[in-house]
């Protein structure tokens, strides 16, 4: 059903919190996502002409890089982009078949690829570019929040997080219940001023991004030029002068 569920107050809102301060843009999350999901719930994630020019394929997560601001305040920011599991996602309501749906129990937005007709209207309706067509099967694919990992009792409990989160070497990705104000992720968002993308679209994304820390709040004294070590100064007079002046 493409009508959105009306979640009970306090219902789970599973999502990701992505730390733009620590993300190093290594693409490990995107790669591990592709690796897991190409045999996961929405498998496969096909590639077109993988071994020749113009190779491309379906990815659920794509890591951009931006420059923001100028001069001392300017920053380079690595920016992973994936489905934000919005609370009021038009990608679901526009779907004519009921293939797209939002789960009432945890808010995950999924596609039933057995019902999808590949009309692609949902991809048009997503402001964030989070849906990509599987051109082999003619059906729509998207991030599942690793629904096949997070509830998977056949893997150790500490691994029951989305593949992108488990692999991030910079610990820039966090997973949890953003509907619970006392969860670790909610506290992290509150503490760091986490924000949503394009709030003006009104889709109410669940995922949050943690801003890069303010460059000007960091210690800003000009780096000192390192002098030679006393042992490197061979001239005895200069060594003596260095000793006196260094006091």
């Amino acid at each position, binding site marked *: 059903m*493409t*009508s959105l569920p009306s979640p009970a107050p306090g219902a789970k809102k599973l999502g990701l919190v992505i730390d*733009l301060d620590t993300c190093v843009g290594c*693409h490990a999350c*995107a790669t591990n996502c592709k690796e897991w999901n190409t045999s996961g719930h929405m498998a496969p994630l096909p590639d077109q002409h993988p071994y020749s020019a*113009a*190779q*491309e394929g*379906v*990815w659920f997560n794509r*890591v*951009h*890089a*931006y*420059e*923001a*601001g*100028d001069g001392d*305040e*300017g*920053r*380079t*920011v690595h*920016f992973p*982009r994936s489905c934000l599991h919005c609370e009021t996602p*038009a990608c*679901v*309501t*526009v*779907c*004519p*078949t*009921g293939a797209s749906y939002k789960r009432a129990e945890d808010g995950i937005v999924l596609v039933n690829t057995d*019902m999808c*007709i*590949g*009309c*692609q209207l949902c*991809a*048009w*309706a*997503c*402001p*964030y*570019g989070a849906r*990509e*067509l*599987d*051109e082999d099967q*003619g*059906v729509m694919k998207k991030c599942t929040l690793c629904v096949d990992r997070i509830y998977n009792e056949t893997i150790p409990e500490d691994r029951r997080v989305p593949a992108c989160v488990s692999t991030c070497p910079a610990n820039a990705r966090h997973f949890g219940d953003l509907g619970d104000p006392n969860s670790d992720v909610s506290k992290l968002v509150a503490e760091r001023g986490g*924000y*949503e*993308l*394009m709030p*003006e*679209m*009104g889709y109410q994304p669940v995922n949050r991004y943690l*801003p*890069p820390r303010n460059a000007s709040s960091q210690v800003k004294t000009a780096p000192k030029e390192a002098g030679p070590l006393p042992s490197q100064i061979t001239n005895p007079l200069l060594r003596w002068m260095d000793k006196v002046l260094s006091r």
Partner: protein
Amino acid sequence: MKPAPSIIFFTVASGAGYGLLFWLGVLKPLGLLPASSLFGATAAIIALALITAGLCSSLLHLGRPERAWRALSQWRTSWLSREGVAAILTFLPATVFLISLAHGETALMVPAGLLSAVGAAVTVYCTGMIYASLKPVKEWYHPMVAPGYLLFASFSGASLLAMLAIFWGGGFFPALVAAALGMAALMFKRAYWASVDATPAASTRETATGLGFIGKVRPLESPHTEANYLLREMVFRVGRVHAAKLRSIALLLGFALPALLFCVAIILGGGASWVFGLLAAASALAGLLVERWLIFAEATHTVALYYPTQR
């Protein structure tokens, strides 16, 4: 947005078909069209053929056309689903209308014609709302988009009807309607373009990334070196190079010239006027193909904000 030929053909052909059905359903019961039952049946057959061809073409756009029937289920939320339901329901009165026209059954003709007209208008409105409800596309999420679909469909349908009625020697009234709608469509489209061009997009690279608090945001590196589905489908920008010229072509060919030619046909009357009617209708459809191409080519999707500006 990528102008997919299957969708452009679909919206122009079925739009004209529904427009023709609409005017036939309204004007025929009022007795403002040639009385010949051959005329009525021909017009209805052309309308249904255009509608059917358009709908078939829209199926080509689907990744899984064999599952298309599933699209009828979600009419509670989806305008695409509503369009499908409305299109299929409209076939019922339209078929009765066609039969009653062919047999000159006036008693059936009036209700069937009016119901067909309602169905045609509802279906085209649903088509318009598919686009008009897509927030990420500023050029579509605009109050003039759905009325525009209705106006252009009724204009192209009236043009076809006028052409046929002129063939049958009774084209005065429909040609007048078509000429008036052509002028209305011209002014409407100009007003729409003026409004869209003057409205800044709600979203920017700064809101898309949330990094606006640092300063201006510039894309540094793309996530991928090659194209992908998103870029091909939603970051299509080739059309805008020639947008200004194409806009003029759409206005002249689509609306101004047909309106003029229909006026000439009315004034000339009699023998040669059918040539002008034919040219007018052909020009209207050709111009609408350009107009529809522009609707896609000029549309910008917010996902483009994440990528470096494409050429």
